[in-house]
């Protein structure tokens, strides 16, 4: 097999997530592609934990749907993850024999898997390592032997991980791995399947996640100030920057609250530095007023919202795409702020750099809508080649422009040179209050309208940023899909499956969500009579946003699903088949 999905669940101390990390580390070393997603209950420590690992010989687009293999250390914990670890008739279930469940009576809600094998994992750990903690390494041994995973790479990982814990602990864990491996060799599975050998990529690969790449992209783009507040699942962005930003002469403020975090970033931008804040839903709501201030003061700012399940506290550790309305419509008054969304882990780098570029070029806050899935899943991706990216700096006034300098001067582009404290002659008043060209406060209706025009007009070039859209499939297809963020990778896989079935279809993935680039949608919708937007929000927020701005095809529907449980490629393919049938029926009627 070329694509292998294993899901594992257990209690906090069972080391399930750690086993997943060992496997993906080994896969990277061997040259496989892969995605590891971790999922936890909302407990801080302990409670249930799980991971899902997809390994493949080709690049993978998403963490996958139904599990090929489920490893169950504890049935209660496994079942808590519900649709995050879906099992069906294709799945092989490996479970802890100690749970004393008959293979014919698994508590899987009526689903009969392909096969079920009870293994005394805990007993093997106790016998081999003298500690039940070692059972995750028993699991690794079982998986390595049964599915042809790279044994030596996994062992190397175990040695590295336990090297610091002393000879005895290391030897125990190596024995646990061997015990699992030998057990699997002695006990062949009903239908043995092995992962095909890796086909390593030409260039170097790395194991990373969206939050790390966001932080690295920020530094690359020239970010020299970060203000923020800890919040799941965005905190790692601040943690990564905290290690490195000082080395670049920058600084970071863990502020007293979300408002102060973004406020300090606005201040740093006013002072001439590229600045960023990062948060998740609840923090984003708090930052809204500052976003309005930065829009009216025309100050560059990047604000990352790593979306999680909302509203309110919602589900902090789960995936959802339900902050789109908040991002687009946050803050009162007539303002536009560009909203960008990465679609893959690797994309997070590119989109973050683009966010800084747009912020500096158009002197505006730019919102990056990442999501828990992209932000925290570990993925094997190509090493970033910074030479591929351009970096834009703000237009600072110089020479003649500093004589009779007017900060908000009306220009053809709507963008006026931006000075900063310390620059002689550039002195001005930045303000949230409406102002004239010089920055002086005004309550004049004509001036207010002109300034609103200026602040809107400057984004006109974004309407033609086709490079911020991905188009896949048959350009002349009559049915189409639109998807965004982490769900786009699932939609793309579904598109490929449908095309393999002979269905003509195309897919549009916007990385620029707002302002809605009407010409791009107009071209995509030309000749389409059915289109569905696939997204992880209850109301179908992108679907509704597009309708506000663009003329849509006769049938313009939405496959929208609340967060936590991923949308599977199978669900999307089913929708595509339904569209195809409906279209065929309509053609017959005419």
């Amino acid at each position, binding site marked *: 097999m070329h694509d292998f999905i294993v899901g594992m669940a257990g209690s906090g101390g069972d080391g399930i997530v750690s086993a997943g990390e060992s496997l993906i580390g080994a896969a990277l070393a061997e040259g496989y592609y892969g995605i590891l997603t971790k999922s936890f209950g909302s407990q801080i420590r302990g409670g249930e934990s799980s991971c899902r690992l997809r390994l493949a010989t080709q690049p993978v687009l998403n963490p996958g749907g139904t599990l090929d293999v489920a490893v169950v250390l504890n049935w209660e914990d496994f079942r808590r993850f519900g649709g995050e670890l879906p099992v069906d008739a294709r799945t092989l279930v490996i479970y802890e024999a100690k749970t004393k469940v008959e293979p014919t009576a698994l508590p899987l809600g009526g689903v009969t898997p392909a096969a079920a094998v009870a293994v005394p994992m805990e007993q093997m750990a106790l016998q081999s390592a003298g500690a039940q903690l070692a059972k995750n390494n028993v699991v690794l041994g079982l998986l390595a032997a049964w599915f042809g995973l790279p044994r030596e790479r996994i062992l190397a990982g175990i040695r590295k991980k336990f090297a610091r814990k002393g000879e005895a602990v290391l030897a125990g864990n190596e024995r646990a791995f061997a015990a699992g491996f030998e057990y699997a060799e002695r006990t062949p599975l009903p239908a043995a399947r092995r992962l095909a050998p890796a086909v390593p990529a030409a260039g170097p690969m790395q194991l990373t996640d969206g939050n790390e790449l966001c932080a690295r992209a920020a530094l690359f783009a020239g970010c*020299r*100030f970060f*203000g923020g507040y800890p919040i799941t699942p965005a905190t790692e962005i601040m943690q990564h920057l905290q*290690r*490195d930003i*000082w*080395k670049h*002469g920058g*600084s970071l*403020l863990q*502020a*007293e*609250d979300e*408002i*102060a*975090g973004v*406020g*300090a*970033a*606005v*201040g*740093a*931008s*006013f*002072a*001439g*530095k590229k*600045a960023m804040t990062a948060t998740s839903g609840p923090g984003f709501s708090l930052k809204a*007023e*500052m976003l*309005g*201030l930065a829009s009216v*003061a025309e100050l560059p700012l990047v604000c990352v919202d790593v979306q999680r399940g909302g509203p309110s506290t919602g589900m902090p550790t789960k995936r959802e795409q339900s902050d789109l309305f908040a991002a687009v419509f946050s803050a009162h008054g007539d303002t536009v702020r560009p909203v960008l969304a990465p679609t893959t882990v690797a994309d997070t780098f590119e989109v973050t750099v683009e966010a800084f570029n747009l912020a500096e070029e158009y002197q505006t806050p730019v919102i990056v809508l990442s999501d828990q899935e992209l932000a925290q899943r570990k993925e094997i991706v190509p090493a970033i080649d910074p030479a591929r990216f351009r970096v834009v700096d703000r237009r600072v006034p110089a020479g003649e422009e500093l004589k009779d300098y007017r900060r908000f001067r009306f220009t053809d582009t709507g963008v006026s040179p931006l000075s*900063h*404290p*310390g*620059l*002689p*002659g*550039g*002195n*001005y*008043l*930045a*303000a*949230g*209050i409406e102002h004239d060209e010089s*920055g*002086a*406060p005004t309550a004049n209706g004509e001036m207010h309208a002109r300034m609103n025009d200026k602040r809107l007009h400057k984004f006109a070039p974004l309407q033609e940023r086709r490079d911020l859209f991905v188009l896949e499939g048959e350009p002349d297809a009559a049915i189409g899909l639109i998807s965004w963020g982490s769900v786009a990778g699932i939609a793309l896989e579904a598109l490929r499956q449908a095309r393999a079935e002979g269905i003509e279809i195309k897919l549009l993935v916007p990385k620029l969500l707002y302002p809605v680039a009407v010409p791009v949608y107009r071209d995509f919708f030309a000749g389409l009579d059915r289109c569905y937007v696939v997204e992880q929000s209850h109301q179908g927020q992108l679907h509704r946003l597009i309708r506000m701005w663009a003329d849509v095809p006769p049938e313009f529907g939405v496959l929208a699903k609340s967060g936590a449980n991923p949308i599977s490629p199978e669900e999307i393919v089913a929708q595509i088949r339904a569209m195809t049938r409906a279209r065929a029926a309509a053609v017959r009627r005419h």
Partner: protein
Amino acid sequence: MISPSEDAAACPAPALTAKDFRSDLKPIWCPGCGDYGVVTALYRALAAIGRPAHEIAFVSGIGCSSRIPGYTTAYGFNSVHGRALPIAQGIKMANPELLVLVAGGDGDGFSIGGGHVPHAIRRNPDLTYLVMDNQIYGLTKGQVSPTSARGTQSPTSVYGSMEEPVNPLLYVLAYGAGFVAQGVPADMDGLTKIIEEAIRYPGFSFVNIQSPCISFGSPDNQIKNQKAKLRKLSDLGHDPTNRLRAMELAQDYGRELYTGVFYRNPNPPPTYERRIAELQGRLAAPGATGA
């Protein structure tokens, strides 16, 4: 950072005057407002300090007093209600060479923005925070404010307010500010000197300015009455290095009108930006991994 006096000695420039800091904007304040005195004292203090206007960043929130940056020639930032301190800290961290001033009213600083004050103080950035305390929300026409005396009757407390006022001086002393003073526009020379001293203090400095609201404030607090009531701490023989005594005196906020320096830390600790520069230097050093 180079002190202003050394700076002047190193490169002689024409001496700055108060006029150099006055902008063309006409204040929106009511005739007789205490804030006129404050901005005049500030012009004089800035002239004495001698830093050119483009090296000054002056941040405020929202309120009558928060209009003040626009009346100076400095780089101003009239931001949103209650958030001047976080913005000012971002400015100072981004460019430690700037002279950073923050101003606002009592509502801005001790009500909506009250949560930022202790954190700014514990970080100790070298900036000066001027609060124009008039015990009323003037811009919205006279509602009770966090420093209004209990029983204050206002459009939102027609039967008299039921809360005790906050005590800005005691709060800020307790939070650990290194420089705490109070001034009044009734004593322009004193106020100018206090602002100048606050700016010169290397760290977070706080000046509470009893700046009366002519339109909605209590008649007892107007400039004429201030002249009669004010008691200079220097005349009382107060030792400004004595923090506990400063806190005792600060307890009389709302009863006595003390002016002058309540507390000046004789051994100023390193500023926030100094600590940041040290970290940056350490991590940038050859061979440093920082990890």
